[in-house]
C-alpha cells in the first residue's frame, strides 16, 4: 500500500491542548499528507538528542492533502510525550511516515461501529470521514475513565457520526466501560463491521463480544516500536491461528481481530 515514506523536519503549525492531558499537534508535512490512509501512523522523534533515543509512533489523526498538513492527537504519558508537549509552534520536528497498514475502507454492508478506549480515538477521525463520505452509517462508542480524558467527541459528531459515550466514573455518558456500552448497543442494534482502538485488555474483551455477535472486527494495535519499518522485528504480537508473530508496524497497526491473540 505504501509506496513512499517521507521523512522531514516538519514545521509545527498548531499545538494545543484539547483535554487536560491531551494535545493535538499539526505538522506541515505534504509528503505524508498526500499519501496517508486512515489507520496509518507516523514515527516521530520527541527530542533532537540521543535521549530518548527511539522515535515514538502516533496514529495519524488528521489528513489534509490540500494544505499539506497532518495531525496527531496524543496523551502525555512519559518522557517522550512530555518533551513533545513542550514543542512550540514554528519549531520543527523529525517525522517519518506514513507507516503501516490502515483500516479496511470498504467493508461489506452499510452500518459500522467505531469503538474507542481513551486516546484510542486518535485514528478514527480520518476513518469516519472516509466512511461517511462513501455512504456508510457510522456510530462511535467512546469510553474513558472520566470526562476529562475524552477528545474528539464533537469533532466526530460534526462529521455526522452518531456518538455514544461511557465513563468509568459516570462523569459523562453512561457509567461503565465502553465494553458494557458495546454489549448494550449490540442488544438493540445491528452492525456490519466494527473497528476498535484502545488498550489491549479492552481490545481482548471487544474481540470476544464481537466474536459472539459474529461481527467482523478490525483492531488498531499498539506495541513498543523501534524502527516502525519492519526491520528490527521488535513490535510483535502473537498470531492466533498459527505459531509465530505479527509485526505491528507492517502487518498492522490495523489487523483483523481473528488474526491476533490478545
Amino acid at each position, binding site marked *: 500500500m505504501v*509506496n*513512499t*515514506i*517521507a*521523512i*522531514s*523536519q*516538519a*514545521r509545527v503549525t498548531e499545538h494545543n491542548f484539547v483535554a487536560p492531558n491531551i494535545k493535538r499537534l499539526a505538522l*506541515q*508535512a*505534504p*509528503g*505524508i499528507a*498526500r*499519501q496517508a490512509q486512515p489507520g496509518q501512523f507516523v514515527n516521530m*522523534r520527541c527530542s533532537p538528542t*540521543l*535521549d*530518548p*533515543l*527511539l*522515535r515514538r509512533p502516533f496514529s495519524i489523526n488528521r489528513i489534509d492533502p490540500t494544505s499539506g498538513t497532518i495531525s496527531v492527537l496524543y496523551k502525555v504519558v512519559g518522557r517522550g510525550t512530555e518533551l513533545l508537549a513542550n514543542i512550540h509552534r514554528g519549531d520543527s520536528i*523529525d*517525522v*517519518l511516515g506514513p507507516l503501516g497498514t490502515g483500516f479496511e475502507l470498504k467493508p461489506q454492508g452499510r452500518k459500522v461501529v467505531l469503538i474507542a478506549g481513551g486516546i484510542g480515538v486518535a485514528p478514527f477521525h480520518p476513518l469516519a470521514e472516509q466512511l461517511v463520505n462513501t455512504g456508510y452509517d457510522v456510530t462511535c462508542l467512546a469510553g474513558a475513565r472520566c470526562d476529562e480524558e475524552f477528545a474528539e467527541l464533537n469533532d466526530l459528531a460534526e462529521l455526522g457520526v452518531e456518538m455514544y459515550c461511557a465513563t468509568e466514573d459516570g462523569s459523562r455518558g453512561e457509567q461503565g466501560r465502553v465494553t458494557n456500552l458495546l454489549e448494550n448497543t449490540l442488544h438493540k442494534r445491528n452492525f456490519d463491521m466494527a473497528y476498535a482502538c484502545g488498550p489491549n485488555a479492552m481490545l481482548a474483551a471487544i474481540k470476544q463480544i464481537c466474536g459472539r455477535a459474529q461481527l467482523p472486527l478490525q483492531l488498531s494495535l499498539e506495541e*513498543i*516500536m*523501534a*524502527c*516502525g*519499518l*519492519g*526491520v*528490527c*522485528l*521488535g*513490535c*510483535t504480537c*502473537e498470531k492466533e491461528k498459527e*505459531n*509465530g*508473530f505479527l509485526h505491528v508496524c507492517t502487518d498492522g497497526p490495523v489487523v483483523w481481530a481473528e488474526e491476533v491473540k490478545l
Partner: protein
Amino acid sequence: MDEHSTRYTVHGGEKASEPQVKSGLRTAESDSRLTTSLCGIKLNSPILSASGTYGYGKEFSRLYDLSLLGAVVVKGITLNQRAGNPGRRLIETPAGLINSIGLENPGLEGFISQEMPFLREQGVPVIVNISGNTPEEYAALAERLDEEPGVSALEVNISCPNVKQGGMAFGVTCDMAAQVTTIVRSRTNLPMIVKLSPNVTDIAGIAQAVEAEGADCISLINTLLAMAIDIHTRKPLLKNTFGGLSGPAIKPVALRMVWQVAGAIKIPVIGMGGISSWQDAMEFILAGASAIAIGTANFVNPYVVPEIHAGLSKYMEEQGVKNISELVGAARINR
C-alpha cells in the same frame, strides 16, 4: 517546505524526486574516495549495515539506493526457521536499546528462496550473517551458502548460546570461538568474517584465536549483555531476563575493543557499536576498522547511511585524503 527537500530522495514517490537532491545522492554514490575492499570484495563505501537492523534490505531500498553501502549484511540466519522470542522484545535505555528478538528469521531455505532474489539485484555485495546452536549447524549453513550465487561473504555470529555447553555463548572462550571458526572454514571458500561478542575479558585474545583458525576478517562488537527490571511488577522486563544492549551508549566501549583487536591481528576489522554519525564512523576507521557497520542508528534516523556517506565524502575532501583506506588505523601511528 516539502519534507524531502532538506534530505534525500525517496524512491517510488510520485512527486518525491527532486533533481538536485537526487544528483547529490548520485555523486555521493560514485565517490571514489570511499571505495575500498575487504577480503577481496570490492566495496562502494566502507559503510555496511549491521545484521539484524536492516532486515534483508527491502525496506531501506525504498528510502535510498542500497549501492551507497559497501555491503548489505542481512539479519542473522539459522538452519531452521525461527519465530523468535515471545513477550516484550525492545527496551529503550539512556542512548541505548536492549533487544531480545531471539533470531526471528525464515531459516536458511526460506532466506534463499524469499530474500536472495531481491538482494542479488541490488548491485551491492551481500554478506550473510549465520547463527547456530551447535558447531554442526554453523557448518551446515556455511556449506549451503557457499554454493549460493550472490553471496559475497559469511559473517559468523558467535554470540549465540552453545547448547552443548550449558548455553554459554560460543564467543566467550577462545576454545569455543576457535571451534566454530575451524568447522566453518572447512566448509566454505567464501570470505569468512567472524563476529565477536564483547562480553569477554580479553577481546584481542579471542580475535587472535579466531584469526589463527583461518578467519578472513573480524567484525565487532555484538551487543553487550544487559537487562532491565519493571519496578511495578517487580520482574525483569524480558522473558529471558537478559538482552543485548546496542546504540550510542555502547560506542565508547566498542571503539576501545576495535582498537584493541586491530592492534592484535593482521586480518581486517569491521567496526560497529553505536555509530550514529560520520564522526563516529571516522573514529572507528582511525582506530583501525577497514569498514564500519550501522545498526541501531538505522532505527533512529532511517537516512543515517546516506548522511554518513555524505559526511565521510566531505571529510575526505576537506582533509585532502584520496582514499578512505589511507586513514584506517591512522590514530595508531606516532603515539
